């Protein structure tokens, strides 16, 4: 099981802050494909991947990063701190 978290407009589009996902996905990109299939809202949230960033266990990662051993995967738009 992986806990998937959403922030900012990804959270709003998906309509959830987090969800537990049973997945066999080997990479983030594979997980995204599984998530897209969950609902139209998910599909919309992940329709433009150029504005989606990902962190695995609170560290920034790439879409092709492996998920082996990951407990928490977070999706969010580019950060706007400062």
């Amino acid at each position, binding site marked *: 099981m992986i806990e998937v978290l959403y922030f900012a407009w990804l959270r709003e589009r998906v309509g959830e802050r987090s969800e537990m996902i049973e997945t066999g996905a080997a990479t983030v990109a594979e997980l995204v494909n599984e998530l897209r299939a969950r609902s139209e809202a998910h599909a919309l949230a992940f329709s433009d991947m150029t504005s989606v960033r990902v962190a695995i266990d609170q560290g920034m990662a790439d879409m092709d990063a492996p998920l082996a051993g990951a407990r928490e995967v977070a999706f*969010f738009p580019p*950060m*706007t701190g400062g």
Partner: protein
Amino acid sequence: MTVSIQSTPFDMGAEVRRFAESVSGAGAVVTFSGLVRDDDGKLTAMEIEHYPAMTEKAVEKIRKEAMDRWSLLGAVVIHRYGQLEPGEQIMMVATAARHRADAFMAAEFLMDYLKSRAPFWKKEIGPDGEKWVAARDEDEDALARW
């Protein structure tokens, strides 16, 4: 205290004074404060969301990088989240060094990285609705100079 992620306001004067007193041998303290900007008078509030489990870790990593790169005697970062009104202070950084060049450079570095590598997201709330602030290409490009 070197990194604080908080919803409550902070007193910049008191924070800077405390910081300056905590670093011995400093000849320069540089401070920066970011405010909620209201460009066209139509901002009611700014909502700042963050990723609690990651934020402090990410900010501390940026702070440590600054400490490693420049000859600093100290650096602090305070960043707020939650709902803020126009004109309120969102965040501040302060750096201390023997000489000003290190303190200035480190403060700029901290700001550039906090903008695009600290997990905060700003949303503008106005009479016509809400809008997430989009990251700007210039902010990402700014990282290249370091």
